[in-house]
């Protein structure tokens, strides 16, 4: 984002091309940005290199050598070994459901707190903020016993419920502050037109804040997709596991299989990456954008 923001004005500014080229500061900034980019991308690159390297080439060449030929068996073997298609589906269905439900819950909460101006809303917000800051490790044991009581241990439904609540806590907090700034003109106009509370929500508030909701949706999806700890605890059976949990299968007691771990890492991160690229435009529109036109 920083890169595009820097480049855009430079292009539309034809008056000072010479000064631009000679200004050494620009080179320094460019070099710094390139270095940063490299640092960010380097781990991904190393994973990609090792994912298509055969174990024998790894053993002789080490992690940084380029593979002499492309070796796809690591990826294929891993896919078959853990039944990766199933894990992808599990991850997709939980992340998607959580994202939809999480956004829905956040909107309803934030409408009440931000626009409805419920009594004591500051305390509600503090509560949501605290809920959001709680480390998951603290929640594990209570959640474990609760889910066992209601027969949801080892079930995707438990994960959907837990993460809907966790994500909605953040969503509520964020969205409430957006809705507090919501233009009263629009609300008054809706009121004059005779729209009830629900009608106002669905026909005025939600459409206007759609970009923000899109951002929340994208984040909820990716965050849930990348969750490891709680799914590891709650999804016991292999047929219920999500992608990050399945990746753990390769981490042994003392030994690790670097090439296959890289392969699994690569195919594990691809879906989230794709999703991110698809929804990237939603994100760049800004998290608080679109409050008023």
């Amino acid at each position: 984002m920083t890169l595009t923001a820097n480049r855009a004005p430079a292009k539309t500014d034809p008056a000072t091309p010479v000064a631009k080229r000679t200004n050494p500061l620009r080179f320094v900034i460019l070099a710094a940005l390139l270095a940063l980019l490299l640092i960010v991308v380097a781990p991904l690159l190393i994973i990609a290199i090792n994912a298509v390297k055969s174990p024998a080439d790894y053993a002789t060449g080490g992690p940084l050598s380029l593979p002499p030929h492309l070796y796809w068996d690591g990826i294929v073997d891993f896919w078959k070994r853990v039944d990766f298609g199933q894990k992808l589906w599990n991850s997709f269905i939980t992340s998607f459901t959580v994202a939809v439900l999480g956004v829905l819950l956040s909107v309803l909460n934030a409408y009440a707190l931000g626009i409805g101006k419920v009594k004591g809303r500051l305390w509600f917000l503090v509560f949501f903020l605290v809920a959001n800051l709680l480390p998951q490790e603290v929640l594990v044991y209570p959640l474990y016993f609760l889910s066992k009581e209601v027969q949801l241990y080892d079930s995707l439904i438990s994960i959907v419920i837990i993460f809907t609540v966790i994500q909605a806590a953040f969503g509520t907090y964020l969205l409430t502050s957006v809705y507090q700034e919501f233009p009263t003109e629009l609300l008054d106009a809706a009121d004059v037109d005779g729209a009830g509370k629900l009608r106002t929500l669905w026909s005025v508030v939600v459409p206007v804040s759609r970009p923000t909701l899109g951002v929340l949706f994208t984040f909820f999806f990716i965050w849930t997709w990348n969750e490891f700890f709680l799914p590891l605890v709650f999804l016991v059976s292999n047929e219920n596991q999500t992608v990050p949990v399945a990746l753990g299968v390769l981490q042994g007691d003392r030994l690790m299989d670097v090439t296959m771990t890289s392969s699994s890492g690569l195919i594990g991160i691809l879906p989230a990456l794709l999703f991110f690229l698809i929804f990237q435009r939603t994100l760049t529109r800004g998290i608080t954008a679109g409050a008023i036109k």
Partner: protein
Amino acid sequence: MILFRAGLSAGALLLATSLALAACGGSGDSSSDEGSDAKVLSLWHYEGPNSAMGIAWNKAIEEFKSSHPGVEVKFEEKSFEQIQQNAQMILNSDSAPDIMEYNKGNATAGLLSKQGLLTDLTEESGKRGWDKALNSSLQTTTKYDDDGIMGSGKTYGVPNYAEYVEVYYNKDLFKKYNLQVPTTLDEFTKVMDTFVQNKVTPLAVGGAEYPAQQILYSLALSKADRAWVDDYQLYKNKVDFKGPQLKYGADTFKQWVDKGYIAKNSAGIKAEDMGVSFTQGKFPIMISGSWWYGRFVNEIKGFEWGTFLFPGNKLHPGSSGNLWVVPEKSKAKALAYDFIDITMKPEIQALLGNNGGVPVAADASAITDPKNKELIENFNKVSSADGLAFYPDWPAPGYYDVLVAGVQGLINGSKTPDQVLTEIQKPYDENLADLGK
């Protein structure tokens, strides 16, 4: 990461108390045909399909199916991490498997046995002769007392394989400098001197993980006897960290660093990188566990290599492998016992051995592959002398990190051997105090 662990262990403690309370209520009688009419055996382990254990156990599952027609085997390959972190929670729920692989040790199998989550196998193991197949140092890790401390009490698990630390060497490099396989520590030192004189660092060491502390422990063991190991590992008597064993270990380790046997920069090297550097032929010698063996057979292409036991030692770091345990909530206990019995059969044991594993009940003559024969013959030498001395980090929870830090201090020269010994004695003694010993 540290916070995360701390939170986890605090939680584990909480859970442990509540589980212990719950466990007091009902521990059923375990007659040997309990659950023999079950139609499903759910079985978990976390070994890769191409590892020695994975191959042998697959075969065992097949044999089980043919001897138990009508029983469905539901096998799931688990991640080590998942079992390690969640075993308590899983075994206390209805999702518990009927039989599973689990880590040996006080903090794992010992803790679960104390909480009443594992089935007592003492009777079954006597009846089926599993106890006779295992020598006494292998049995140490299968027995846990009422406090969950290994070495005595009831049998809660059965290991199929073992592991031990030995010396891997690059035959080509030995030949290049005209060196013989050393049989005493002195000869070993001379071999390493020759390498140093020729500007070759002799030892591949991973100082950031388990390998370095195992070298120090091997050196201490060269001055130790079984009684000392029992003192150190099973808390029979108080251990003097400044006594001849550990002092010799730390001092000699320091000398090895000073003489250049161990590179200064190896303090930051991980075990994985140590293994790769050896397969690349960058170092002539690596002292580490038998778990590398199968991998080296497949991956070392550039030179000839071999193994020998740490020269002069009667005791070697090593132990039984992970255990088969039967959860108390298992619905098919009798079937689980049948399965364990199959894994102890000679043909399954031989299959394990022929694929680079170390079978516990090994008959070296049944091992056809010459490379694997060397591994198993060496193990039998250790085992027949009852020479497995376990691992240095076993005695106290969290001791692994203490030892890593201590040995790193020796490698990069920031601490003297004396300081290191004082430093590693403290948590050891604290743990003893916690146990009331």
